[in-house]
Structure formats: C-alpha cells, structure tokens
C-alpha cells in the first residue's frame, strides 16, 4: 500500500480548547482519523479541492485548496482511528460528488479528477461533555469546524480501541505500528 499522507494539524491545543469550550466540552484530546481523498477540479485541470471520505461515511467532507496541507511526519500524539476499510471505488466517489453538486449547483463544473484515491490522516480534536450523559464532540484539526458527520466513525473507533485495551495508548507508545 502506498505511503499514507498526514495532514498538518493547524488548530493547536489552546485554540481547540477554546472552540470546544464554546460547544460545551469539559475535556478534550487530539485524534487522527484515516480517510481516503481524491482531488476535485475542472477536467484536465489541477485540483481546487479534495473530497475526503471512507466507505463508512454517508457524505464526504470537502477540503478546499490546491495542495493538501501535508507533511512527511507520522501523526503525533493522539488516538488514531483506522477502520481499515478498502478505498471507495471511482464510481462510488463520482456518485458521491454528483449528489454534492446537485445540492450546490455552483459546483457543477467541478469533477472528480481521475487519480486513484489516496489514504491520509485527518487531524481532529475530540471534546467530551459531562452532565447526565457523556457526549462526544468532534472538531476539525484543520479549521476548528465541528464535524458531526465523523461522529459515527470516531465512536466506533473509540469503542474498538477500548475493547482492545488501547484506549489510552498514545501514538508514541505504539511506535511505528501504523
């Protein structure tokens, strides 16, 4: 399998705390989610945005920018969530993008660019609310925006990690296992 890209975490802990605090969280931690990405742009042009998804997600995330903000380092601290699902097929990606374009007609001229999807680590911050019930909040480590659509994927990952007794193992402790 090709090398997995790692997106640079742009929201630091201080900023993440502030954002999660406004959403009602009382504790927070960094996390990484493994997703597949494919470029979007005009036919025969360079990408202008990136579609991020896994087979477990119903709707893809859109990351705007000509270049992915990646670096060569492996993910640093934080739980890494990877359901090890195969990449979505090109047809599935194109159809996913079709519905996004239908929802926002301004995107009609933008197409999925033909390259095979690449796997990457998306940085996130997880917030935990207290009270009568514990709730999970997910915000992007790139923009700080809440990402509720990632919740099912992350909850499943947290449960898996808990069941495997890895819940609190940081990436440093895991070494190069990923």
């Amino acid at each position: 399998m090709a090398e997995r890209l790692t997106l640079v975490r742009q929201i630091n802990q201080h900023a993440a705390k502030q954002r999660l605090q406004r959403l009602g969280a009382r504790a927070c931690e960094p996390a990484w989610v493994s997703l597949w990405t494919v470029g979007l742009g005009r036919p025969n042009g360079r990408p202008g945005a990136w579609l991020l998804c896994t087979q477990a997600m119903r709707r893809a995330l859109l990351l705007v920018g000509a270049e992915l903000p990646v670096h060569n380092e492996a993910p640093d601290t934080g739980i890494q969530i990877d359901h090890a699902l195969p990449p979505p097929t090109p047809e599935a990606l194109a159809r996913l993008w079709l519905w996004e374009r239908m929802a926002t007609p301004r995107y009609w001229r933008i197409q999925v660019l033909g390259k095979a999807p690449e796997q990457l680590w998306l940085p996130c911050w997880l917030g935990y609310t207290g009270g009568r019930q514990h709730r999970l909040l997910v915000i992007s480590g790139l923009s700080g925006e809440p990402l509720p659509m990632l919740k099912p994927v992350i909850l499943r990952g947290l449960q898996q990690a808990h069941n495997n007794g890895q819940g609190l193992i940081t990436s440093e402790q895991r070494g190069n296992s990923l």
Partner: protein
Amino acid sequence: MEGFTLFDTIVLIGYISLIAWIGSRFGKDQHNPEDYFLGGRNIPGWAIGLSVMATQASAITFIGAPGWGFEGGLERLVTFINVPLAMIVLILVLVPIFHRAGIYSIYELLERRFGPATRTLSALLFLIARGLATGVVLYAPALVLAVVTGWSVNLTIIIMATLAISYTVMGGISAVIWTDVVQMFVLWFGALLSIFFLVTSLPGGWSDVFNFGATTGMFNAIDLTLDPSVTYSLWAGLFGGFFLHVAYFGTDQSQIQRVLSSPSVLDAQRSLLIGGYLLIPQMLLFLFIGVILATYYQQHGLTPPEDLNELLPRYVVSAFPSGMAGLVIAGVFAAAMSSLDSALNSLSAVTVRDFYSRYIKPGASDAHYLKASRLATVFWGLYATLFAFFAGNLGPVIEAVNQIGSWFYGALLGTFLLAIFSHRSNARGAVAGLAAGMLAVWTVSALLDISWLYNNTVGVAVSVGVGYLVSLTAPAPSHAQLSDVMMTEAAPDMQAVLATRADNAQVIGKEARLTRRRCIGLFAWFCIMLSMLAMLQGWANG
C-alpha cells in the same frame, strides 16, 4: 405622477444586466478552481444570513405585506411573532440531527428511519406544496411588471416564467451571495424611501399616521381572544404560527437545503439566527408601510386597487423620482428571480434524487442526471406557471404561500417529530400519521371555522398521535433504524468508553455554551418584540 419613465426602464435593464454580469463574473469564469469553493467561505456570516433571507421572502414580502398592513394594520404580525421560537427548535433539534445524518435531502432521514414509502410520500408532498407556492412566487414579480408596463398579468406571468426557467436551467446567479445582499438592501432602501415620500406627503406627517392607526385600531397587534375562529389572535400566532414556521423552515427542502450545505452546524445555526432576528422587524417595516398607505389613501380620498398586492408597486412607480422607481422594481425582480431559482432548483434536485434516480433510472451517468434535472426544472416551472394564473385569487401573496404550506407541512413536521422523539414509532405508523394528519387539516379547514394558522398544529397533533398509536400495532424499529435520531453515545457501553476517555483527557474550563446563548438571545428577542407591540397597542388605545 411620473409613471415608469424611460430612465426607469434604463435603470431596470442596467441593474438586471449588472447583477447578471456579477453572477457570471464570479459564478462561472473563475480562472482558479479554488474560487468555486472559496466563494462562500470568505464571506461574513451576516452576508450569508441576509442572502438566505433574500432567497426566502424578500420579493413577496415587498409586494404582499403592505397589502396585509393596509387591510388589517399590524394584526397579522402575530403570524411571524413566533419565528424566534421556531428558530430555537430548529437550532436545538432539527439542524444538529440533519447535519449529523449527512443527508442531501431531508426526506432521506425518513427513509432510514421509516423506510422508502415514507420518504417517497413526504418528498411527493414537498414537490406538490412547493410547486404550488412557487406559482405564487412567480405571480409576485409578474404583477409588478404588469403594473409597470400596463400589460396583462397572465402575459407577464408567461414572460417571467420563461425568464426564470431559462435562468435556472442555465445555472442561475443566486449562488453569488453578494448579489442577494445587494438585492436585500435595495428592497429595504425602497421600503424606507417609500416611507419617507409617503410621510412627507401627509400634511401632519407621522402624527397623521399614528392618529389614523390609533383611531382605526391598526396598531392592535395583540388580540387575546381565545376564540379559535379569530384568524390573527395571539394564540393563533403562538400555537399555530409556531408550528407553521418550524415546518416551513425545517421540513421544506427549498428552505433547509442551504442549511444542509453549510460547512458546519454553527454556520447553519448562524444563518437561521439572522432570520430569527430580522424577520419580525422586516415584516413590521412592510406592514407599517401598509398602515401609512392606508393613511395616504384616506387623506387623498383615493380608491385602493382591487388587488392589494399592487399597492406598493403602484405607489413606487407613481411617487418615486425617475430612476429610483426603476431601481426598486429591478430589486423586486432580482430578488424574485433569486427565490424562484432556489425553489426550482430544490424541486428538480428532489425530483432527481428522491424519485428519478431511485425508481426510473438508477445508475445512469452524471450527464444523464444533469439533463434530467434540467428537464425537471422545466417541468416544475410549467407547473408553477399554471398555478400562478390563479394566484391572484388567493389574496395577499404572502398569506397565500403560507396557506398552501399549511395544508401539507403540519403532517410532514409531525412525521419528522415522530421519527426523532418516538423511538417506538415505525413505518406503518408514520405513513398512517402522515395521511391522517393531512386529512385532518383538510377536514378541519373545510368543516370548522378556525384560523388557518392552526392548520399546522392540527396536522402535527394528528400525525404524531395517530402515528404513535398505529405504530403500536407493528414491531418496534431496529437499532439501525434509530441510528440517526438516537445519540449513539447514549448506549451504556459507549458511555463507559466516553467516561474513561474524558477522565484521561485534558480538562477544560466551563463556559456558557454557544448554542444555549444563541437560543436565550432568540427568546429574549421574542419577549422584546412582544413587549414593544404591547406598548404600541397600549399607547394607541389610550
């Protein structure tokens, strides 16, 4: 009376051409593909909110609300007094669930929860209701054009329909948020200018307006009568209008589509907040124009036009300086185009996604679906055109749009509430509730003399009640069917996982939650608005 001069016509054409140029400049010909995506992101939230408002109601508000005010003063403001409360429900309940579910059309949620029959039926109801309401939205600018040109309304409907359909099929320009904002300001400017010219033309100025309003009871916005047949009592506004607006903003795809395509829940909430704060003042402004026009007509001994929707366009054309009238009429035009574009687009998107790609041609190419969506746009444009011919008989356009919605949306909202709050309800109950809810609305409105504002309340109550009871006759839904409406983290094992993680994560201090603060702000706004109306009424009645 100057009438609509050649200079006005030049301004009208110039304005529409300018808006079209801005649209094509920023909507189509970007050199950098990133611009397509960044277009909506570098724009402040207030502009996005105003753009949503422009899409929602500006043109029909401009035309319909003064007619309302002329006829009944501020009494009809109770229809909108509940909007901040409705927005609280949307912000707290519906938007987070829709966003988390990752859906394109809200009717998908009903399929996951209840199965394909409920999705198909609810999407069909949306298509019928929104298609009819689009007819009214089409009628509004056609009426303005008819007043300006002296042509027949039916001819102008056909011209407007042709323009609107071509405009939508070609891609529209409403995607450019700034053009919507400009249109919004042009309309408000037109409204304020109308007030200025009207009031300065009265010998006593504002005192004439307030005296006339007070003596004719036009400032009696709060009617505490418990009689349900009183159309605009405070209770009808609170208990009927509240459900009307939750249903309108929460279960109508043309309204919620922009919220669903917001990059985050907070952005979606922000756009609703703007509506929550501005809809009442905007309506008050236009109703007040109606009161001022009533004073003007009374003092000048004028006979009002048979169709009260023509009141403000007629005044603008007759009283505004040359050029200004052209600008304001162009603003109405462009705003109506924006609303039509949005409505026709959501109608064609639901047709293709919820019907065509599922039942008629699944698995076709993108190009095929694009073609199908364009044909669907043409179809819905023709459907709306047919209805537009009759829209003039429905009274003030703004009420017509809401009345059409009230026939369908109460039952639809009941089905969504059942899906979200009753984990025992199932497909059988949902379909029965939806059908019974609509039947109840139609029966009640045909047989009983009650305010149409209660239609939605009846629809919600019957669809929830019948839906729940009928659900008891079939097995409970599976866990998977409840996944969109149940917090996954509520399960005991998941709570244990989260508790462990939270205990080992970095602690952050407490702060009032943003969503809670926003909802408290909206509630306070509702109280302020109600108090202001009560004070005005108290003053008017001595």
